[in-house]
């Protein structure tokens, strides 16, 4: 495929199909709608594939669950509102160890807790990847399908209006990752009557034995999540070596932070960026290393203060942490806030850099 200008929604669908995604189900909702549109168009042209315009988000994730249970690469998505409706299934799918990819084209960054805390019932977390631009979304979408299969675990792609609707020139080709184990767990009906038939079960029931072992079941999941957390922390650092202040920002907002840093550096301010790419597992050790000896850590996020909790837990008081973001959306509430402004961000960083008070509250 040659380099082509396309918006994030289309690039995500193309990247997913390049990664072998054969099933998608979704329910329209701004700013996610175009992701569904592109899947509907492209999967109709792809053999042995299906895209369902589901009747609700609850049905969308149920359908994607069934497709994934057969071993097919399967995905669904919505905005954070729709993901709220999907959380019950997301929890169960995690416990049944079924790989699935879920796109959240969020209305801003207020879904950070929903994404990273295991938004439904029970004791679990999902892998969450937050691309900052369309090219990275292409890469992380393919990585998401790979990680889902590697760990038999859901992976969430956290995007937003900017990612879904910014057009960039990208080149989409299938990325070859490490070899994956066979999906011998997937249901195909073939083991019926053998005494070894499968049961993709989220409540810990196994064939031929009465009852469940809830403690052992939860413990096994918890241990797997420890292994994921150790292996899958991802982040990017920009100009942190000599920096006195480090901005911590993720997703689209990190792009604006980057532009602000360029301007601030030209003024002689020693400012750097730490960008978590995996929101769970949060790259805590790397942030702690980067923060050591710095004057200030400025947490920039488009919400009332969510990621700042992970930042503080990572740094454990090694440097002062100040929030420089805030609630910031447009009149329609789609998350296109005034905070997406490198000059405004630069002003706030200057204040933090000089130890002045940073304005709080809505950025409109």
């Amino acid at each position: 495929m040659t380099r082509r200008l396309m918006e994030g929604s289309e690039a995500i669908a193309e990247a997913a199909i390049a990664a072998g995604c054969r099933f998608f189900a979704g329910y329209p909702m701004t700013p996610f709608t175009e992701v569904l549109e592109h899947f509907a168009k492209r999967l109709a042209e792809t053999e042995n594939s299906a895209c369902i315009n589901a009747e609700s988000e609850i049905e969308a994730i149920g359908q994607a669950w069934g497709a994934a249970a057969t071993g097919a690469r399967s995905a669904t998505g919505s905005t954070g509102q729709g993901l709220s409706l999907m959380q019950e299934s997301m929890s169960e799918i995690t416990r049944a160890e079924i790989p699935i990819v879920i796109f959240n084209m969020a209305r801003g960054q207020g879904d950070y807790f929903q994404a990273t805390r295991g938004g439904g019932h029970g004791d679990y977390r999902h892998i969450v990847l937050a691309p900052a631009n369309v090219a990275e979304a292409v890469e992380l979408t393919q990585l998401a399908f790979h990680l889902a299969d590697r760990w038999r675990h859901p992976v969430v792609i956290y995007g937003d209006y900017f990612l879904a609707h910014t057009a960039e020139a990208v080149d989409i080709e299938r990325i070859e990752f490490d070899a994956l184990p066979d999906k011998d767990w997937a249901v195909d009906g073939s083991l019926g009557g053998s005494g070894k038939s499968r049961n993709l079960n989220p409540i810990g029931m196994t064939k031929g034995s009465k009852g469940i072992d809830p403690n052992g079941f939860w413990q096994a999941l918890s241990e797997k999540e420890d292994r994921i957390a150790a292996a899958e922390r991802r982040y990017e650092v920009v100009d942190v070596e000599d920096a006195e202040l480090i901005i911590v920002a993720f997703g689209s907002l990190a792009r604006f932070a980057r532009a602000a840093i360029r301007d601030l550096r030209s003024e002689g301010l020693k400012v750097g960026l730490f960008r978590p790419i995996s929101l769970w597992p949060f790259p805590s050790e790397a942030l702690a290393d980067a923060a050591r000896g710095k004057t200030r850590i400025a947490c920039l996020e488009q919400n009332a203060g969510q990621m700042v909790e992970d930042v503080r837990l990572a740094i454990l008081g090694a440097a002062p942490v100040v929030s420089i973001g805030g609630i910031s959306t447009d009149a329609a509430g789609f998350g296109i806030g005034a905070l997406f402004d490198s000059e405004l961000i630069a002003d706030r960083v200057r204040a933090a850099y000089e130890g002045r008070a940073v304005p709080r509250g809505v950025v409109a």
Partner: protein
Amino acid sequence: MKEDPLRVVPTDSAPVGACRLKGSALPALTLMGEHDLCPGCGEPLALRQILDSIEALNFSQRAIGVIGIGCYTALTSLMDIDLIQALHGRAPSVATGAKRMRPENLLFTLQGDGDMVNEGLQEVIHTAARGENVTCILLNNGVFGETGGHMTSTTVLGQRTKTSIEGRDAAVHGHPILIGDLLSRLDGTAYAARASVHDAAGVARARRFLDRAFESQMKGEGFSFVEILTMCPTGWFIPTADGPEYLDTELGSIHEVGELKRDGVLLETRGR
């Protein structure tokens, strides 16, 4: 391979060893083990018909079941076919996704009335309307059995439950949903039938309806639905032995047994 349970022991020659009838009379596709169901429960009768139908139609290595949440969930550890355990109400959607990826497989759901008609009503209606090539099977006892006898959307008027102590009253609790009748009216539904396991003829009828539903699915005719009325004396607060008669007279008089739709055509007289 199963041995013929009725194999004749030769008597025209001297026995060559200790003589005993060998072979197994165990039902197909069933693992041996304990279960948690109450005395007088109708669900094992229905489940046996489902498994026997799959075996007899030669779908044993092609069947995938999607299981809801209810008393029957405890029996899934004894069903020797590939299964996906779904959430309460969500089985039709899960079956939809699996069938789209594996159209050559027989996909069926197993749900109770609380699961399908309360929590998951929207899912089963949409799956039927889409004409999805799956078979949804409802075990309808008109009560939440697992939680201990609470009112569901199929509880008939006058029926006593823990949340309709004096009997279901239309003015207070609303009317029951006749789900088979409702689903049969949708254009995507190719086959719809209601059976009852209150007696041997009813059990045999359930088996016939299941056979037809599975065959309809594998011919690609569209959505198929079999409702099976089952006894729940525990949840009805009646003596165990009274279960079959209560089922036939109380539930069966409202949720009427018979075929409602065949080959995509509504039947004016219910098929038997």
